[in-house]
């Protein structure tokens, strides 16, 4: 690495370190440095999104295929109907996309409901049966006791089914939580508490990991500064 490259790297690292410290400064209290960093993130993210979306979506999934299909319309040899079909598959999504922008006009805002309805319908049609299968049926199957396993597995299964039923009983509000239902619901609360405890533990680990990541970066920055100063 050349000396100038080193300097450029250090400048970038220093900017990143400044922004990291600016974000950390919120822990003390809200301040202009924190807000500067926050606004930078929002602005840069928006710009970055637009650039990436143009190159990875608009350009190669819409503009280029449309241009290709349009030009094939005027090339002899192809089946005209097929080529018109290809063009339509490009034009219709484009029109639907443009209709989304009608939200900016109070008079034409109703037009944006069409692409939203189209998207919702597709999502519902594709996703719902699969969601039901993956997130309900398969989970119910997994909560059934399999007596063919080892004693340890059977005990595990019993804990799962007890936890599932008692957890569901806690959320069953059509009966007063008294008597047997009340007792089962109480077990459900304990099961939920254990679940929340595990989630809390993992959440702490997650957040500490992020802090370690930033501190690691700051240490790297300090080392870089020291090595540059001593070289």
């Amino acid at each position, binding site marked *: 690495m050349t000396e100038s490259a080193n300097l450029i790297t250090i400048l970038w690292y220093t900017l990143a370190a400044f922004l990291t410290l600016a974000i950390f400064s919120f822990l003390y209290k809200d301040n202009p440095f924190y807000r500067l960093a926050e606004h930078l993130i929002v602005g840069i993210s928006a710009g970055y999104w637009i650039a*990436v979306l143009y190159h*990875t979506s608009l350009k190669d999934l819409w503009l280029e295929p449309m241009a290709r299909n349009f030009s094939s319309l005027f090339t002899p040899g192809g089946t005209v109907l097929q080529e018109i079909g290809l063009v339509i598959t490009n034009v219709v999504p484009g029109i639907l996309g443009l209709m989304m922008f009608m939200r900016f006009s109070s008079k034409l805002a109703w037009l944006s409901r069409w692409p939203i309805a189209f998207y919702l319908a597709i999502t519902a049609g594709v996703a719902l049966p699969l*969601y039901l299968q993956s997130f309900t049926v398969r989970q119910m199957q997994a909560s059934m006791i399999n007596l063919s396993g080892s004693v340890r597995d059977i005990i595990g299964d019993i804990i799962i089914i007890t936890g599932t039923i008692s957890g569901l009983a806690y959320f069953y509000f059509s009966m007063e939580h008294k008597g047997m239902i009340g007792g089962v619901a109480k077990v459900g609360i304990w099961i939920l508490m254990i679940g929340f405890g595990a989630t809390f533990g993992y*959440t702490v*680990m*997650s957040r*500490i990991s992020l802090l370690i*990541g930033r501190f690691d970066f700051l*240490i790297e920055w300090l080392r870089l500064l020291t090595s540059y100063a001593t070289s």
Partner: protein
Amino acid sequence: MNDSSKISLWEKIMQVDRRWIYLTIGIFVFLPLLFKIGLPIFITKEVQAVYDRVDALPPGTLVMIPCEYDPATMAELRPLAHALFRHCFSKNLKIIATALQIEGVTLVKDDLTLIAAEYGKKHGEDYVFLGYKPYPAIVILNMGENFRKPFPRDYYGNELDSLPMMQGVINYSSCALIININATSGADYWINYANGRYKAPLALGVTAVMATDYYTFLASGQIFGLIGGLKGAAEYEKMIGQSGRAARAMDVQSIAHSVIVILIIIGNIAYFVSRGKMRGDGR
């Protein structure tokens, strides 16, 4: 010291400015980073399952590693991505990678290229980076039909059919495994579509905060392995015999967790003692 002064100390603890707690945690995270301690790391069976499946694959087998992490979550998932790439490349497996989280596209590209260079692997021959396309659910569904539908070209603009590694590679059925590294709820899409619809063998590497949500899918057999956060990454690093950033960070985690547990215990004692005092005073 008399009894009342003891209680006033607990009351003071109850009123302590939370910024002191931030500072305490900060110090106990920062200082251990400067030293190598080397606390033991134990391997869990859900991480071992991923390692075993990858390790058993013959050279040349195709593994798909979609990486959905970004600068905000890279501290947790980047060490795992590195460990997985290293394991696959050391076994001469071929990798198809995607980055369906927009902020992480260049990050994943850099990580994959960096590790590939360590093993002398070439893009298009030993690995392919497809990059990003919007709407992960639709992209995952389409890749189940044909990788070329959502990705007519790879990240670098090459036609997929022009890449030697992609010859004869159609969809998930061409991949022996999918190991999704994910910091978003997009992991649900992989379970729902890649595994649910296309029956692709799937494992997840997720942030620690997400891990508890996905144990149910491990129990139901919808995923064959689960690597949770930095701890999971540290386990994987240990199994491939290359202790790196995750293993070192686990020392810090252990110390920080101990401090947090001590603070919780002190906080609870202070709460109960001061509550007792308030009741005694008739407040």
